[in-house]
């Protein structure tokens, strides 16, 4: 059967035949559309294409924040734990980050890196704001003092 027909008849939510000799990975499969990504967390044979027929769908990940500034993730923990116990399973970094934040794994080191960079950026931003404020105050002071000096001298 041609691949596109195969994909037509067998949906993206899983059901591909498990081949014992082949390596599997837990990774994100991008769905959604242009400029609006949406990911499925899937178990799939490593050599298959990104959106090929997965063995099983383990969850979803919506990277765009909603109105409450939340990025929503759903995980099928029971099945993930099963797949973590199988041989030759490869987990991608993006998925490792999600698993770390979900508490399945220790926090991934990239998460720490992102956090300290964000923190540093926020700190610099605050300092910048403070400096600007100080500058503004000084300018205002100067402005207030300038006419006084002018009147004093005159």
């Amino acid at each position, binding site marked *: 059967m041609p691949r596109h027909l195969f994909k037509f008849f067998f949906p993206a939510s899983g059901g591909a035949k498990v081949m014992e000799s082949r390596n599997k990975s837990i990774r994100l499969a991008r769905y959604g559309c242009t400029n609006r990504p949406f990911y499925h967390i899937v178990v799939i044979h490593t050599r298959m294409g990104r959106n090929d027929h997965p063995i099983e769908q383990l969850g979803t990940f919506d990277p765009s924040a909603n109105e409450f500034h939340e990025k929503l993730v759903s995980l099928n923990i029971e099945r993930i734990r099963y797949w973590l116990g*199988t041989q030759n399973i490869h987990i991608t970094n993006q998925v490792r980050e999600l698993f770390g934040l979900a508490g399945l*794994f220790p926090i991934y*080191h990239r998460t720490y890196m992102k956090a300290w960079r964000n923190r540093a950026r926020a700190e610099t931003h605050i300092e910048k704001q403070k400096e600007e404020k100080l500058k503004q105050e000084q300018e205002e002071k100067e402005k207030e003092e300038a006419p006084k000096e002018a009147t004093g001298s005159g």
Partner: protein
Amino acid sequence: MSRELLKVFIKGSELSASSLPFTHISVRYRKPIWLPTAPSKRFRVPTRLVLPTHEKRELDRLTKNYKTYNKAMLAYHTDINSKQSVTDPGVIEAQRRAEEEDWEQSINLNNEWNAEVAIEREQRLAIEKEQKVLQILAQKKAKEQKEKEDLEKAEQAVQAEIENSKTFITRDNIDHYIEQALSSHVDYNFAIDKEGNVYQGKKANPKSSKEVTSENEEVAAKN
């Protein structure tokens, strides 16, 4: 992308890209893979990211830690899976035990059912035995009765034969009977009319016949 394709096809022809019917659609198309690098990006050299030393050291430490934890986590889950899998000795032992328990339970249940059935069977057999005894007795009685009847019948037949034997022709009286047979002449040459009158003689005229006898007269004469 189709628009780009069309652009390629109509290059050098009379048509132009602006003459296409869907120019009003405003979509930002991606660069097709076969088009070269944009002239503005041709000589761009991407800046290489260099991590600060302290950050790199911290990241290395975190990576090392993570890898250790990762190994432990995967081993833990593998262990759990193997404990739940069919090939684990613990699982095999548990299955065997469950099977044995099931076997024992079924045997007990079977024994109970057998005992129940045995009681029923004994009762049924006792009843059947009584019935059989009665049946055999009845058959015996019937047989005796029949034999008796048969004997009586045979006796009667013998008696009848003895009675008949008085008229039998024997060596002693055969001459007498021969004589009797020879002497008693019967002439079958006779005719009978509608009124039962018998006319003796083969060629006799019934008007002149002297031996005309009516059956009625004969019957009357006999009486």
